[in-house]
Structures are given as structure tokens and as C-alpha cells.
């Protein structure tokens, strides 16, 4: 016989939860007492509940295992909302436990009561409202199963305080198996469709592979790499999919979309066969939908049927887990390849010639004509890449710095690039890096941020001090909400309405006040030395405040409205 609170903790242990990111309050005090009395699950005390959700999210993105969050009712729950929405948009497995007021008070506007199930409903994969302590094991089991299977996502369990009462003891048993008649995610794909897809691949003249976060979530990077290399096709990854295919390989054309490379976007536009895997054709990818891939037949592989033909109609839809489908494809391609015609081989060679022509234009080349006075933000990322050997796990916030990181730090492996792509949540970078560092204490974890974004969760520097998290924070300080300012430059004749960051703190003294190390780089000459020194301080959190060119824009950039994928700004005033 156990209390509901003990049952909850035991159930989380059954699910192999090793860390819970949370913050206490009235409605979860019984649960916190149960945490106190055990030592299998480590609780990480944050400074703001939003950060708890991003930490769990970063933990999940880096490890593939679900992140777990515990917050109190009312403000604790609402503070968690942004992080839940962030995880939802990027299909990240997460279980969020929120306290709720006592059952008999629900609906009476009682102290710290909010309808968490209601508020979170549009941004969760599913949610549970606990009615009694006996419900807890099954709800936890289902929550973890739902969060991690099919297309993953966050699940909320709302627990009224009385159901965790330490004096109400009930029998405890954790279910071995789950029967859910109304939930059965696809476990394999349609072999007929896969065959058809492969025969189209064998006949394509200008094929292109485009993959998204689904390949990373589906742990299919190795299979994707294998298939792509067998076929010899060009490949691009979305912002969420970077690292699914080695970023330094020659078949990789870079990222596509809004800030994609010239070669990736052009190859998309001109291809005659598009193999889309674990990607969802969102508006940052397609530009004007009616002008998207005008010559292509589209094969779309995704575990979520609702993602297929949502924005762009697929000619060959394949619903199934990406790993399963890729595995089948590899088998079929192996048999078919020897019979690929001479004609097709030479068409493919011609296609590559065309692509190399685009690549030769060097759309990412960095020109610094400031005599070394001013640091270009791209140079910071290049320096970071050199000094980490491309091996760091990099998280980012949202803005120009995010795009520079995505474009100038090629990732050769999955789960090394962690950012909020779908929701674009400023404030994600630092806490997600903390979740990663907690999961992998030995890894080099770097957060690339901006002076705007970092201030959205800067209080977590205190949590970093408490848990000794030696994250390296690279602040691309352009004294502006750079991405907003860029849009204002391009679309509002340079009227910078509230996109300047005034009264910035002295970041180096700020981080030192938290007990960390602060460094500053203001000219190109010092950049490499500072970067190197920061990265050698293995046991310290180092905040590197880099003064970068405030005038820099991110290019390429798709031209909207009404543009296609080949319509891009390449630099200020220069377009395709």
C-alpha cells in the first residue's frame, strides 16, 4: 500500500526516468516529499518553469529518451506552457506532471487553480486528469507510451493534490502491458508504395532528397546516409533535420528553405523527383506553395498520416516509421541499382554538374572588409567550429544567430544540433543546453545565443551554478533583435521599431555575479584566442560575449510573397 505521491514516483522509476526538471508549490508538496524520500530520480530545481520544460526538451532531443517535468498548479502550470508548445511543434517526447488543486475545489476558482488540461489541450499529444491514486500507474504508463511512440510529442498529467495525499494508501501495481484500442501508431509502411517509390528513384533524371526532424526522431540517420550514398543523389536537411546526413559530405547541399543555401533551394526547385522523409513541408520550406517544386513528383514518407498531403500533395504517400521504410528501400535499391541504365547514370551526372554550378557561387562565403575591427557573426561560428572540431552539441536560441549557427556549423551526426524550429522560442537555448549537459556530463555543450534571447531565461545561470553545468555560451551580441531588424531593413524601409536592445547588462560581470566565467571579444584579432580559452575551461560555465557587426543580415533569404524556392536574396540588394 502506497500513497498517490509514492505511486507516482515509483511509476516514473518504472519508466526509467533518471531526471525530473521541476519547481515546487502547494499542489505538488506531497509529490516533492515523495521525491525527498528516494534517490533513484534526481530532481533538478530550475528558476522558472519554462526553463524546466526546455531542459526536459533538450534532454529528450539529445538522448531520444522522454524528458520529464514537474510543476505546481496555476502559475507553475502556465509557466510551463511555452515549453510544452515548443516540444509539441517539434514532436519531442516529454511528460509534464502538473499539480492541480484538490478535487473538491476544482471549478471554484480556488487559489492557484487553472484548467491545465484545457489550456494545454491544443499543444499536447494527449493529456490525463487523475481522478484517484489508483489511476496513476496506468496514466503514467500510457503517457510515456504515447509521448514516445508514433509521432512523438508532449503529454500532460494533471494531478489533484488530494490524490497524492500521504495518508491515503492504496494498493500499487505497475501494469506490464497496455491495451489502447484507440491508439495504434503505424509500425510498418506499405510495401507496394515503397516498391513504386524505388522504381521512380531508378528512373529519375534530377532526383533530390529532402529530410526533416523525423529522421532524427526516428533514429534513422545511418539508414538515410546509406540510402543516399547508394543512390548518389543530392540531399538537403531542414533546420530540424541537420545532422541526419553528414553535413560535411559532398552529397549534402546544406540546409533548405527560408535561409537555405542557393544550391539546396535551386536543386529543390528544379528536381524532377523529390524524396521527402520525416519532413512536413512547412511554410518556411516551401515559400509560395503553388510554386513549390513545379517539376517534381513527390514521394513522402512520414509516420504521421496527417502530415502527408497537408500542405503539398504527395504523388506517392508512404505512412510508416522512417527506419522501417528506409530499411525496405535500401534492400530494394540494392537489387535495382545494378540495372540502373546508362542513360540515367549520365542524366544524374549532368544534374550534379548543374548543382556544382550553383555550389560554385559560394553563397555562404564570408566577406569581412572591416580590416579586422568588426567581427562578422559568421566568423564566430566558424571559429567555434574550428575550436570544437565540429564535435560539440550545439543548442541555439532564435534569431539571426540561430541561422548563422545552422549554416556555418556543419553537423555530421544527429542529435548534435538542438533548436526550436517549429515554434521559434527565444529563451530555449540556455535551458535546453542544460538538459543536454545533464544527460551528457562529459560532452562539450555550447549554446549559441543573442543578447535578446539569452535574457529570456538568463535566470538559469543560477541553476547552472547549483548543478555545476560547464556549458559554453556564445553570445552573438549585435545590440539588436537582429532578425526583427533585418525584416525591418528589408520590408519597412529600415524603420527599426523596437528592435534595438537598449540598456544591455554588462554580461561578463553579470555571469561572474552568478559565479561563472565571463569573457569578451570585440575584434577579429581576439576572437580565436578568446574562443580557444573559453573552450579549454572544461569545468566552468563560460559566457563569451562577442561584439558582432550589428548591420549583418542572414543570407540567402527567400523572397516572399509570391516567390518560389529559386527566388532568393543572396546579399544586400543582390537577388537571383
Amino acid at each position, binding site marked *: 500500500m502506497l500513497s498517490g505521491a509514492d505511486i507516482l514516483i515509483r511509476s516514473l522509476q518504472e519508466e526509467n526516468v533518471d531526471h525530473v526538471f521541476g519547481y515546487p508549490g502547494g499542489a505538488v508538496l506531497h509529490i516533492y516529499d515523495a521525491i525527498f524520500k528516494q534517490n533513484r530520480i534526481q530532481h533538478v530545481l530550475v528558476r522558472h518553469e519554462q526553463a524546466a520544460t526546455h531542459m526536459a526538451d533538450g534532454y529528450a532531443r539529445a538522448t531520444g529518451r522522454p524528458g520529464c517535468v514537474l510543476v505546481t498548479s496555476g502559475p507553475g502550470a502556465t509557466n510551463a506552457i511555452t515549453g510544452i508548445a515548443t516540444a509539441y511543434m517539434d514532436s519531442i517526447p516529454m511528460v509534464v506532471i502538473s499539480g492541480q488543486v484538490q478535487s473538491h475545489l476544482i471549478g471554484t476558482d480556488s487559489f492557484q487553480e487553472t484548467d491545465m*488540461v*484545457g489550456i494545454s*489541450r*491544443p499543444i499536447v*499529444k*494527449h*493529456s490525463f*486528469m487523475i481522478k484517484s491514486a489508483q489511476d496513476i500507474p496506468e496514466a503514467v504508463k500510457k503517457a510515456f507510451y*504515447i509521448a514516445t511512440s508514433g509521432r512523438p510529442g508532449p503529454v500532460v498529467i494533471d494531478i489533484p493534490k488530494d490524490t497524492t495525499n500521504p495518508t491515503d494508501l492504496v494498493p500499487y501495481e505497475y501494469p506490464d502491458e497496455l491495451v*489502447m*484500442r*484507440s*491508439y495504434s501508431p503505424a509500425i510498418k509502411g506499405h510495401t507496394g508504395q515503397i516498391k513504386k517509390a524505388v522504381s521512380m528513384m531508378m528512373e529519375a533524371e534530377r532526383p533530390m532528397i529532402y529530410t526533416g526532424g523525423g529522421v532524427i526522431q526516428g533514429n534513422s540517420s545511418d539508414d538515410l546516409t546509406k540510402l543516399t550514398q547508394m543512390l548518389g543523389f543530392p540531399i538537403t536537411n531542414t533546420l530540424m533535420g541537420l545532422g541526419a546526413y553528414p553535413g560535411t559530405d559532398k552529397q549534402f547541399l546544406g540546409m533548405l528553405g527560408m535561409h537555405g543555401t542557393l544550391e539546396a533551394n535551386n536543386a529543390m526547385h528544379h528536381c524532377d523527383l523529390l524524396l521527402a522523409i520525416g519532413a512536413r513541408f512547412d511554410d518556411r520550406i516551401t515559400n509560395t506553395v503553388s510554386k513549390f517544386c513545379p517539376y517534381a513528383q513527390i514521394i513522402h514518407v512520414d509516420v*504521421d*498520416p*496527417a502530415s502527408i*498531403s*497537408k500542405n503539398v500533395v504527395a504523388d506517392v504517400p508512404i505512412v510508416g516509421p522512417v527506419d522501417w521504410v528506409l530499411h525496405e528501400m535500401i534492400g530494394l535499391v540494392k537489387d535495382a541499382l545494378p540495372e540502373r541504365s546508362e542513360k540515367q547514370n549520365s542524366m544524374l551526372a549532368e544534374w550534379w554538374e548543374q548543382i556544382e554550378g550553383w555550389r560554385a557561387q559560394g553563397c555562404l562565403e564570408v566577406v569581412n572588409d572591416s580590416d579586422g575591427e568588426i567581427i562578422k557573426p559568421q566568423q564566430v561560428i566558424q571559429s567555434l567550429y574550428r575550436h570544437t572540431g565540429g564535435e560539440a552539441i550545439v543548442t541555439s536560441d532564435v534569431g539571426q544567430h540561430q541561422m548563422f549557427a545552422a549554416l556555418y556549423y556543419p553537423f555530421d551526426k544527429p542529435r548534435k544540433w538542438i533548436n526550436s524550429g517549429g515554434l521559434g522560442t527565444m529563451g530555449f537555448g540556455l535551458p535546453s543546453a542544460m538538459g543536454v549537459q545533464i544527460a551528457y556530463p562529459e560532452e562539450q555543450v555550447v549554446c549559441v545565443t543573442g543578447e535578446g534571447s539569452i535574457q529570456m531565461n538568463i535566470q538559469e545561470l543560477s541553476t547552472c551554478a547549483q548543478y555545476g553545468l560547464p556549458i559554453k555560451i556564445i553570445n552573438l551580441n549585435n545590440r539588436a533583435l537582429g532578425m526583427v531588424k533585418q525584416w525591418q531593413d528589408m520590408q519597412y524601409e529600415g524603420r527599426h521599431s523596437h528592435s534595438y536592445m537598449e540598456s544591455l547588462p554588462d554580461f561578463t560581470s553579470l555571469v561572474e555575479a552568478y559565479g561563472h566565467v565571463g569573457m569578451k571579444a570585440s575584434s577579429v584579432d581576439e576572437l580565436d584566442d578568446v574562443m580557444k580559452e573559453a573552450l579549454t575551461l572544461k569545468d566552468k560555465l563560460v559566457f563569451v560575449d562577442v561584439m558582432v557587426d550589428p548591420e549583418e543580415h542572414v543570407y540567402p533569404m527567400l523572397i516572399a510573397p509570391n516567390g518560389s524556392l529559386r527566388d532568393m536574396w543572396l546579399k544586400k540588394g543582390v537577388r537571383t
Partner: protein
Amino acid sequence: MRRIISVLLENESGALSRVIGLFAQRGYNIETLTVAPTDDETLSRLTLTTLATDEQIEQITKQLNKLIEVVKLVDLTEGEHVERELMLIKLKASGAQRAEVKRTSDIFRGQIVDVSNNTYTIQLTGTTDKLDAFIRAIAESTVLEVVRTGVSGLSRGEKVLTL
């Protein structure tokens, strides 16, 4: 095009709000909605009508299927089906009007289920079109109140929506 979606739903609190929330959140429209437990009390049957293009209806059914509590669903309008709606309508009926209203009600196979000195309450079942036609037919009378259940329906023939 008007579609009738029939859904088997876990009979759990909160399930209905997810269905309705989905429609609101994704900008789909709901014309009518009716829901009640089935012979199996762990299941509710929900019928809704919506105006949607073929592409929209594909998304709607896929998104509905993604809801954990949706067990199964069918677009009844894809095949032959029976559909019914029930209406209770309270009319002003006095003097010579009374006979006229009764006659019209009979033509539509309505039943007068409540009577007062100055009113008739008529119960009518049929397709949405038929109920609409009745309201047009009694345009002369003063309608005091109308309540309609919304459409429910089943596929014709052997086809059934069960577990």
C-alpha cells in the same frame, strides 16, 4: 460540400472537448454536432456535419484520427447512408390558423406533442432538407421557438462502424 462524419469516441470526460477544440484550432467548421453513449457504454457516438472540400475533409479525418480518444470514424457521405434530424418547433396557433398548421404538420408527418390555447409544439424527424422545407412551409405562422438535434446517421446495408 456538406459532409457527415460519424465518430466512435471513448466515453471519457474531456474527449468531446478535444474534438471540438480540434475544429476550432484548425479553423474547420462544424454545422451540427450530436453525441451520446452507445449500447456499449464505454463508447460515445458523435456525428457532426461540416462544410469542406475534399482536401479539407482528408485533413479533418486524419486529424480526428490522431486524437487518442477517437477509436474509429467514417465519412458517411462517402457512401449511401440514412440520416435523420429531429426538430421540436413551437408555433403560435390560434383560431383558423390552428387547422392550417395541423394540416401542414400532417403533410410533413409531424406530430403535435404539446398543445396550449395559443400554441402548438410539433415534433418532426427527417433529413435536414425536410426540416428546412417545413419551416418554409409554415412561413405564414409565427415561430416561437425551434430546437434541432443536429444530424445523426448510419451507413446503408451491411456496413457498420463498430470496434
